C-alpha cells in the first residue's frame, strides 16, 4: 500500500524565521511528488517534483526531491503570516492515463506568529 508521511505534524514559528517541512514516501512505480498549500478548503498547487536533486523555487518557497532516500523537503524563508496554512505533500504513481490518484500525507500545520 502506498504511504506518505509528513513531519512535523505542526510547527509554530515567528515571522521572519525559515522553516523546513519534510515528506517521505513509499509508492509503487513512483512518478512524482507534489506539494500543496491548504488554507481553507481547496489545496492550491505549489510544486511538482519528478527528478532527483533539482530544486524548484517560487519566491520564498523552494523544494527538492531525493528519489534514492525517498523524501522531499519544502523550505520557506522569511516566513510571513500569510504562510500560515496546512502544507500537504502527495505522491503520484505511474499511470497509463496521464494522471493517477494521489496518496496524501497527513499534512504539516504551520502557524506563523507576527
Amino acid at each position, binding site marked *: 500500500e502506498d504511504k506518505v508521511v509528513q513531519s512535523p505534524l505542526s510547527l509554530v514559528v515567528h515571522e521572519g524565521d525559515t522553516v523546513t517541512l519534510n515528506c517521505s514516501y513509499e509508492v509503487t512505480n513512483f*512518478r*512524482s511528488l*507534489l506539494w500543496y498549500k491548504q488554507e*481553507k*478548503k*481547496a*489545496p*492550491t*498547487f505549489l510544486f*511538482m517534483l519528478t527528478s532527483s536533486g533539482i530544486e524548484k523555487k517560487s519566491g520564498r518557497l523552494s523544494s527538492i526531491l531525493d528519489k534514492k532516500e525517498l523524501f522531499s523537503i519544502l523550505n520557506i524563508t522569511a516566513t510571513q503570516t500569510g504562510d500560515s496554512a496546512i502544507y*500537504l505533500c*502527495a505522491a*503520484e504513481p505511474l499511470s497509463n*492515463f*496521464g*494522471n*493517477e*490518484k*494521489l*496518496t*496524501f*500525507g*497527513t*499534512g504539516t500545520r504551520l502557524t506563523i506568529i507576527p
Partner: protein
Amino acid sequence: SAVISQKPSRDICQRGTSLTIQCQVDSQVTMMFWYRQQPGQSLTLIATANQGSEATYESGFVIDKFPISRPNLTFSTLTVSNMSPEDSSIYLCSVGGSGGKHTEAFFGQGTRLTVV
C-alpha cells in the same frame, strides 16, 4: 490548467438524509477523483470516477454509501447517503491533466458538510 466548479460550497444536513455534490470541469478529462477530508485529517481518496463505467472505490468506501455518477467527460456527482455525524467532512473533487499531459492535480473549491 483546469477550472473546476464544485457546489454546494457548504451545507448543514440532518442525519439520515442524503446530499449530492456536483463538480463541473471546464475541459474534458478522463478521470475525476473524489476525496474526503475529515476534521484534522488529510485527504483520503473515496473513489475514481470514469466516464462510461462504474466508479472504482477505495478500501473502506462502498457504492451504496457514496454513489457516483459520471455522465460525460466534464461532470461528476458524489452523493453522501444516509448521513451520520461521522460524515461531517470536507469533500473535494479533483482532476489531473487532460489529453495525457502530466500536470498537477486541480481541485474544486470543496464542500464543507456538517451533519447534525
